[in-house]
């Protein structure tokens, strides 16, 4: 077996608060190859903090600790700031939930994408522009020239998220971390954006970490799933095996979803067992 792209052992993220130390992530371990890994959990399960910790983007006063956290042989935990800045957006990219907050409102879309490219590749403005237009076309934006000149408020949410994906993939990263990239979108748009992401990830042979609260979506989109609760991984399983999930938490999450074709029965309510968090 080849060396995994990303290897994480015993990752923990803790915050010192007035009421004591809050451990948002506790002892999370996983390996990632060139595949789609889903991290699922409810709010407060630590799934986003896990994603942020990988890029060392944990907001102060949060502290990150781990036995190992390596990306392609680079120790992410002790990498100097300069090396991290090269990695971020270069070899590891991140797409956040809401394009409204991740795009700069006073800069045209095109300038932002070209800037992302020029920050990592030595290229002239003209080359960057051609690359940006190509990328906008790759995320299936119909009129790339117009969108290139547009400001973020002039595009819809679905298009904004495609622009984010274009910006994150233009540097040809090896790993993309997508934190609820489509939760703010309508269902059909959501799936179309995911299809674009799926195609690009498989064409370029990237690794993808897909963070979401939507168990069914993750199961149908990813290859492998980590189910998180209370900062810990409850269960790791192949996406196709979701319906044979063993852990009561995973089962509980699955059962409490309303189904279109099974109506008017009381939904089973998830009961949480404190013993899960040992």
């Amino acid at each position: 077996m080849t060396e995994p792209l990303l290897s994480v052992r015993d990752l923990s993220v803790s915050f010192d608060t007035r009421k004591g130390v809050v451990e948002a992530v506790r002892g999370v371990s996983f390996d990632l190859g060139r595949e789609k890994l889903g991290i699922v959990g409810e709010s407060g399960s630590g799934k986003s903090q896990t994603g942020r910790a990988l890029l060392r983007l944990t907001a102060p006063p949060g502290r990150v600790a781990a036995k190992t956290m390596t990306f392609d042989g680079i120790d992410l935990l002790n990498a100097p700031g300069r090396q991290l800045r090269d990695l971020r957006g270069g070899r590891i990219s991140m797409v956040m939930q809401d394009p409204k907050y991740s795009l700069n409102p006073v800069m045209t879309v095109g300038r932002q994408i070209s800037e992302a490219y020029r920050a990592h590749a030595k290229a002239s403005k003209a080359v960057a522009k051609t690359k940006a237009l190509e990328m906008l076309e790759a995320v299936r934006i119909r009129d790339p020239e117009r969108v290139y000149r547009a400001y973020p408020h002039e595009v819809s949410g679905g298009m904004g998220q495609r622009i984010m994906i274009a910006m994150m993939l233009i540097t040809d990263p090896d790993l993309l971390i997508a934190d609820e990239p489509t939760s703010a979108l309508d269902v059909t748009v959501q799936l179309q954006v995911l299809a674009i992401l799926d195609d690009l990830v498989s064409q370029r042979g990237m690794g993808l970490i897909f963070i979401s609260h939507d168990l069914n979506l993750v199961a149908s989109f990813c290859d492998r799933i980590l189910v998180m609760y209370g900062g810990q991984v409850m269960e790791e399983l192949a996406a196709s095996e979701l319906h044979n999930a063993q852990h009561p938490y995973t089962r509980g999450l699955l059962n409490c979803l309303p189904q279109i074709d099974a109506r008017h029965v009381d939904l089973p309510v998830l009961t949480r067992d404190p013993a899960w968090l040992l």
Partner: protein
Amino acid sequence: MIDIQDLNVVFSSGADRVHAVKDVTCRIAAGESFGLVGESGSGKSTVLRALCGLATGWGGRVTVDGEALEPTAQRSDAFYKTVQMVFQDPYGSLHPRHTVNRILSEPIAIQGLDKPGSRVEEALEQVGLGHGFRFRFPHQLSGGQRQRVAIARALILKPKILLLDEPTSALDVSVQAEVLNLLMRLREELSLTFVLVSHDLAVVSHICDRIAVMRNGEVVEEVTADALAQGDPSERYTRQLLVASKGYDRAAIDQFEDFG
């Protein structure tokens, strides 16, 4: 119970004119639960807002429990005793500096009803919150508990109709299940009429008997939840929504049409 005929809602005028709701007609019988489903901007919430006076200046005829409504923000006291609304965001719809007790007492004071204390206790009981919650502030409650308080506030005047605008979309799925169960139980116990607005086909078909699918301000079709469960709505748009709600399927996505 609710009779809406040719409802039209237009916001602003000139270049910014938005025709948010176009000729929507529907009849909802007493005790029924009716769903409005659609993507963002389809006008589903605006229909509810026109009913309860939050959107004004609409055209058409709307009758609720025998009372013809005016397209203004004015509603009679009796209207609020019949119709109450629950909003999407329990973080935004409760006053952050009022206790649960004060939030629940306000409708009683406005309507000049007696025995506020016991009414508050009763409403909290109904939504499954003990009296230990009565003197808490919203920030001391979880999202699910806040939504229960919002439901209690709607129930405190013993209305016949509840208007529910995405009541569970800000909640985690496990909490959503609890709130949906609560709504189903209350409807049974208090024989309420529900109008539920949601973007989530599964939630709407869980709660409702009859569902109107909206797109661009128009009702595309009306289906029963049973027809939806069997998976054969007649409109292509509804079928596409149904496919989309089943999860990611690369092949199906290429078939998606843009309904504009």
